[in-house]
């Protein structure tokens, strides 16, 4: 079984998606990004259902979750992932517009692996996303079991 070095990005704002992809492209990570537009799609992808029924097996190396999304928000997705024995080892990074204390606390209580506030300044934003991509997709090591596809 081949390891998929892909990143799952759940983000409802197409502008943000474009900015994030622009940032990741600078390190040639953009081609490995799977983009979903809300929490429900994110879970469909992870459980290989709906439109992702036929996708190649394997878990993403990291999940970037926007907090505010239609249908199921970031915290809801996080809760499901961390409650699932087969998904809980996938690193999850919260990407959000502001650092609201209650969101932070709840995320960490649910077992989030990182929490990043999107900087307003473009240069800082680009820098932050690049760091994330490089760290989680290239530097970070994870147990083999976490990449096993669940069907």
């Amino acid at each position, binding site marked *: 079984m081949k390891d998929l070095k892909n990143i799952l990005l759940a983000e409802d*704002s197409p*502008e*943000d998606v474009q*900015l994030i992809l*622009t940032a990741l492209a600078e390190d040639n990570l953009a081609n490995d990004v799977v983009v979903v537009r809300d929490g429900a799609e994110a879970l469909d992808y992870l459980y290989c259902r709906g439109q992702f029924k036929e996708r190649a097996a394997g878990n993403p190396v990291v999940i970037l979750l926007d*907090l*505010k999304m239609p249908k199921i928000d970031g915290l809801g997705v996080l809760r499901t992932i961390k409650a699932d024995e087969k998904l809980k080892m996938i690193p999850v990074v919260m990407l*959000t*517009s*502001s650092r*609201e204390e209650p969101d932070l606390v709840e995320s960490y209580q649910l077992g989030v692996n990182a929490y990043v506030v*999107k*900087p*307003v*300044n*473009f*240069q800082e*934003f680009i820098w932050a996303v690049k760091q994330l991509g490089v760290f989680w997709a290239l530097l970070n090591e994870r147990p083999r079991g976490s990449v096993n596809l669940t069907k």
Partner: protein
Amino acid sequence: MINQTGRPSIFSLRFVSQAGSVTAIVVGFLVLVGWMLDIAALKSVIPGLATMKANTALAFILAGVSLWILQGEHASHHTRRIGQASAAIVALAGLLTLSEYLLGWNWGLDQLLFNDPSGTVGIYHPGRMSPATALNFALVGCGLLLHETRRGMMFACYLVLGATVISLVALVGYTYGVESLHAINAYSTMALHTTLTFLVLCGGILAAHQGQGLMGVVTGKNIGSALGRRLLPLAILVPLVLGWLLVKGQEAGLYGMGFGTAIFAVLLVIIFVTVIGWTARSLSQFDEERTRAEGALERLAKTLEQRVAERTRELEASREAALNMMEDAEEAREKAEQGASAQAQLAAIVVSSDDAIISADGSGIIMSWNKGAQRLFGYEEAEVLAKPLPLLMPERYRDAHHKGMERMLSTGESRVIGKSVELHGLRKDGSEFPLELSLSTWSMGQRTFFSGIIRDITERKRAEEEVRHLNAQLITVNKELEAFSYSVSHDLRAPLRHINGFTELLKAHEGSRLDATGQRYMNTIVNSAKRMGTLIDDLLVFSLMGKSRMRTGTVNLDTLVRDVMNDLHTEVNGREVSWHVDNLPEVYGDATMLRQVWVNLMGNAVKYTRTRARTEIEIGSRQEGEEHVFFVRDNGVGFDPQYGDKLFGVFQRLHHSDEFEGTGVGLANVRRIVQRHGGRTWAEGRVDSGAVFYFSLPDRKEQPE
């Protein structure tokens, strides 16, 4: 048997002395009469025997008179002098006569009264008393003289006893008819009645001592004196009588001298053995009786002791009982007094109270009703007395009331006694009103009573309702505000980020093709977006200051202000800034929030002095009543006082942003934080003359939220 009561009484002793005195006087007179009328029987009793001389008779009369006076208890001082003078004359007469005998002088005393015819028996010197008589008078006279002095009493006794012995010897001579005895020169002329009179006189004198001196030996009340009284007469009489019988027997030729003496000795032995045996028996009987009496006495003493102890215990107990009763009575009295005063106080309270005060008995029958109750319920006192309590309550409470009363009376438990409960009351007009009831219970004898204080809480209820409503509104508004700020932070920031991002991307992509004007437009878009980002961030901080929980504690403002000064270091770089910071007190509050206050005020001071060549910033505090007032004074650009109120409003600025950057949120934050600490904020300033910003914090240890 020897009886202690056998002691001679003072009366009988006095009789003896009076008898001695009278005898001496009478005999003296008779003898004088005998001399005057020449009656031989009076002069010498038995004719042929020696006569009593006239001066002897006179001396007897004087001695008798002296004894009479001296033995009397009530004799006056003057009379006693006469008695003493008489005694002195008697003693003098004796001594003078003796000196005549011894020295051969003649004082002319002998023939002073009567002429003694010569040739009388045994007379060498006619009319002169015999030497023995003279000696006796000297002894008796001195004895009488000494009688007066207490110390001389004992000596007087010896003198008189001496005279007695001399008289006895003479008497024995007469009775035994022993020639040799009264042939002795000294005795030869002591007449028989002189001898007897001496004996009686001496007895009288000794009796006059009344148990004092030597006489005490026989007149005392102890057993020794009793024995003395019993044995003394025997000791005197028995040998005399026996001796007389012995002599008479010998004279009659019944037995010879040796045999007579033997019989005399044997008889003496027999008599004295008998007397001693008898006495010993009496003594032992007496002793036994005494022992018995002592035993009885001891028993009696013990019984008495017991009785005394018992009685003492009884008295003690009854005393204690009495004390207890007194204490109880005192307590009861105090209680009664306290009770009375408490009752008066209570009555005054009940009458004057605005609250309704109602009491009821155990079955819920109304017993008292005050004016407050009348105002509250609308009933007159007469209308409700002896009526049941449920009259005053709406239908829905009556069931619970009855059950509660039953439970209270049967188990003593109650859900309402001693507490305040909120219920509804029923007025006379049928309307209901909310009330607060404080119920208490008390007992009198076996009966239980209730009393309730009832307060109309209509107003309070209305106010409470209003507060509750306002609170609910506030909570709603707050929630909306929270949602708003959340939305601001998330939703307003995202497009801002996009403007920023895409402007940058556009610059990177098309930058080289834009002319100078196009470049300027691009920069304006970027700057505007940045500025809006800052505004949003500040606004978020401001809303956070309003709703975040305060973490209060003691805050050292000296340290805090010094830290803020260090943080401002980069801002003042290259400028000449002089800080004057006073000592600041410790306050109670949220350190993070208070730091925000100082950051804003000190930051402003630094910012608005930027145009000054030399910056002066002064920080200090003062105590004003219940609060600390802090100030930050600068020599900066100041402000127009007519806009002073706007300074602390959100987004309010008095300067253009091209002069001094800023969003206008800083002082709004200061005000919000200070108000949450219970303090105030204000400012003083004039354009171009610097500004002073003040805030106060309450001087207290507890911080209300």
